[in-house]
Structures are given as C-alpha cells and as structure tokens.
C-alpha cells in the first residue's frame, strides 16, 4: 500500500509537484503530424497546462499558452498566418516562440505593449510522425531516437498511430505494464468468456503464469513471464517486454512492433498513443501501397454511447481496469500480492528518480542534447504470445486490439480476407 501523501507525490503532475517536475525533464508526444496536417491548430492539455499546438504557414511548429494575453480568449480557435498564429478575437499574432508579432488595432503601434504581450511558449519537435513537446527548463535534453521512431515505411511495412484520452491518472496505466498476470485473466479468461458468448474463436492468452521476473536496466525495466508449457528459452522469458522509463512500453510479435506511450495531460487524464508498425507477409505486399494512402492516425474507441467499456478489444479491456480504479486511485486500501512485485519495483524506481530530480542528480533517460541522434534499440519479441482467432488471415487477430479502429489495418484485413476466400 501507499500512504496518501506518497500516492500524491507519485501521481500528481502539476507544475509544482514532484512527479510534474520529473515529467518536465522529458520530451512528451502531444499529437501526430497527420493530425496537424488535417488541422494546423490543435488544443493540447499537457501536465496540467492548456496549450495550443500549431504549424505556421512557414512550416514552423509552435506550442503556446491557450489563453491570449490580450483579453483571454482561446488561441485554440485561431488561425495560422505567415510565421505565426492569430488570435480569433482581435487578430493579435504570436510567433512559435511566444513573441507578439502584431496588434492590428493598436494605434499608434506600441513596442512596449507588444513586448508585454509575450506569451508562454515551449519547444516542439517532430520525430517518427509524432510531435513532441518539452515543458522543462532550458536547455532541452536530447529527444530520444527510440528504434521504432527511426523505422520507415516500406513496400511491406506501414505505420499506424492510434490515440485516446484515458480518463484516469497516468500511474494507473503504467502500473499495468508491470503486471504480467493480468493478461491471463483480463485478456484470457474474461475475453474468452465474452468470445464464447459471441460464438467466436477464443484467444490463446489464458495460459497460467508459473514465474514472473523483472530486470532493472539502464533505461528502465524489462518484464518477463513464464507460462505453463514454456521454458526459459521462450521469448516471453528470454526477451520480455521493456519499459523505457517513465512512460513507454514496447510490445510486439507476429509482424507488429509497437510502443504504448502514456502522456499525463493532468492528474486525471492521460493521452495514450499506440504507435505501431506492421510488417505484412510478402504474399500480401501488393496491398500495402493502397493501405498507405489512408491516414496513419486514428482515434481509438474504448466506451460505448452509454459509457460502458467495450469488452471486444484487448486495449478497451485494459482501459476498463485502469479507469474503474478511479480518476486518481487510492493506494492505502490496496492489498498487493506476490504477483504485484513488478509494480513495487516501478514505484521504487519512480521514487529514486523523483529524489534524484529533487537533489540535482542524474535522471534516467534524460541525456544531453549532444547525444541526440543516437539510436536506442530496445528488445522485442518476434514470435511469442500472439492473440489467436485470426484464422487463415495473418493480420486478422490484430483486430482484437485497438487496431480495429485503424483505417489502414482494417482495410488491409478486408483485402486479405477477400484474397483468402478467392483462393478457396
């Protein structure tokens, strides 16, 4: 259990909180490039701050405070003009660096008023189709070039980025990444219960765990599991699932390589990205070009119109258990068991990093900008786990994940189904 004051220390992310200060040491993704291409002005909430992300007509990216310093209207309804963003109310114009460039109806023009109207701004960078923001002190650290961010699409590979706002605190989501045995129940037994009722093929995720282990490494923690019938030579144990501290889980297998990225919007909301690459079997490579013409960004649906969580994807099942703990869960009433020791390890790691940040020590994964560009390779399973239920279509089982909302994946799966049917 955690005392309430410790729980608050670990969970809250506002400007003057320990975890908020820690998160301000990292670059955090706030949108996709595809999103911003569709609409170049986007309201963003990050670490308790209301901001506006925009791409100026010059192509420069900017992230500024949402509230206009003139009379407080939202710049989120403004429009790009030349090198800046104009307020929707009176046309005041701001640069990506927050300078007030124009105050159209101020007569005569006042350099002093213009200087006073400078607004808060933060650096933003694009990498791998995502747009990252840095809300901390200067100088900004290196933007980590994790392996999947450096991957590129090819005739047999395409990218897909799902996103959703999860209405709960970030730490509840991260703790799930250190909880191997939930797969057996939530995605195995419970999912199979629903699939059986629907007359569909079960998953292969119900295998009983006989051993779990965790490696503390220089970038975070690797989670390992051994299920009945497996040996320590199986990838579940030998490779495992790495977590890049503090908020990125890497998972994959059978053609999927993915990051699950959890970005704290505020104490009670988390922006979740499913950053995926799919490698398509060679016999279906002719379909990839068509698929790549579709958008690579999509919103993931987790609840129905009545607010009930959908139980038909692995990811909405996860969201259900994260959110139903409460917007910011209490931890002084929990009863952790031996299967929760990965959670304890992560909390201890978090505690050590909070302390390091407060005392001026080195913080995990915060690297000097001079190291920028170095590729960071993380291990990934290739043939382990699987989901089951795809039949003869090698991509179909991914429709039991959030990928079912992807225009690219669902189109590809339909095309493959047609080919499989035609082949008889």
């Amino acid at each position, binding site marked *: 259990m955690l005392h309430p004051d410790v729980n608050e220390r670990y969970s809250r992310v506002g400007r003057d909180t320990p975890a908020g200060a820690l998160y301000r040491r990292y670059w955090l993704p706030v949108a996709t490039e595809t999103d911003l291409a569709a609409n170049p002005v986007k309201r963003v909430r990050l670490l308790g701050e209301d901001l506006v992300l925009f791409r100026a007509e010059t192509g420069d990216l900017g992230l500024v405070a949402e509230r206009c310093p003139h009379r407080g209207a939202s710049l989120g309804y403004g429009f790009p003009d030349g090198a800046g963003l104009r307020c929707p109310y009176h046309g005041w114009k701001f640069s990506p660096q927050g300078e007030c460039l124009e105050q159209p109806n101020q007569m005569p023009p006042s350099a002093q008023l213009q200087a006073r109207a400078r607004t808060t701004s933060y650096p933003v960078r694009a990498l791998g189709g995502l747009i990252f923001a840095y809300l901390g002190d200067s100088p900004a650290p290196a933007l980590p070039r994790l392996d999947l961010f450096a991957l590129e699409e090819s005739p047999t590979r395409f990218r897909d980025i799902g996103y959703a706002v999860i209405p709960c605190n970030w730490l509840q989501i991260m703790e799930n990444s250190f909880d191997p045995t939930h797969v057996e129940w939530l995605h195995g037994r419970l999912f199979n219960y629903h699939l059986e009722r629907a007359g569909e093929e079960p998953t292969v995720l119900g295998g009983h765990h006989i*051993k779990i282990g965790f490696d503390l490494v220089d970038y975070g923690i690797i989670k390992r599991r051994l299920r009945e019938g497996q040996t320590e030579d199986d990838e579940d144990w030998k490779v495992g699932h790495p977590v890049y501290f503090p908020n990125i889980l890497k998972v994959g297998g059978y053609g999927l390589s993915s990051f699950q990225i959890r970005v704290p919007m505020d104490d009670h909301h988390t922006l979740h990205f499913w950053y995926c690459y799919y490698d398509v079997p060679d016999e279906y490579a002719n379909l990839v070009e068509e698929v790549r013409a579709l958008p690579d960004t999509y919103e993931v649906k987790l609840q129905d119109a009545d607010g009930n969580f959908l139980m038909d994807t692995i990811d909405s099942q996860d969201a259900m258990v994260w959110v139903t703990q409460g917007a910011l869960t209490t931890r002084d009433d929990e009863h952790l*068991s031996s299967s929760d020791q990965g959670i*304890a*390890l992560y909390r*201890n790691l978090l505690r*050590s990093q909070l302390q390091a940040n407060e005392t001026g020590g080195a913080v995990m994964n915060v690297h000097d900008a001079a190291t920028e560009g170095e590729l960071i390779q993380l291990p990934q399973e290739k043939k382990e786990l699987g989901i089951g239920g795809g039949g003869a279509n090698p991509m179909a089982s991914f429709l039991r994940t959030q990928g079912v909302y992807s225009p690219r994946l669902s189109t590809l799966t339909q095309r493959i189904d047609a080919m499989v049917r035609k082949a008889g």
Partner: protein
Amino acid sequence: MASPADSAAPNSAPDGGCRDGRHRTGTGICPACGEWLPTAWCRAAGCGWREAIGEPTIAAAVAHHTETGHPIRVLID
C-alpha cells in the same frame, strides 16, 4: 500487506528478514506473515551483489542500480 514502495514495510524484522525468520533466502511469499520474498541479483560480470531480505529487497535492488548502473534481476517464483 505493505508494498516496499512504502517507507516502512511493517512485516519486516529489524534484521531485514521475514519476521518469521525462516524465509530469508526463499522466494515467493511467506506463508507465516505474508511478506513478499523476492530474490534480486546483479547481472554485471564480477559484481556478485545479491539480496533476499523480504520486501526491502526491491528497494535494495533500486539502490544498487542507482549506485552502480548495473543490471539487476528481481525474481519471484
């Protein structure tokens, strides 16, 4: 049961072992007091650091990693 993320692990005896005293080097969970009994060991060549002191094992593992940067495995059978 307390988690080792708490500053105090109430089931831990002063010597760092399980209060029952018989499970200092065991793994899993103590049948007498319910304390976790993980084992942690350093995987850096030549280091030899190893700990199995009940719930404080996990905090000790993080401390060793922070001090040395060595990779550590925490295992629960």
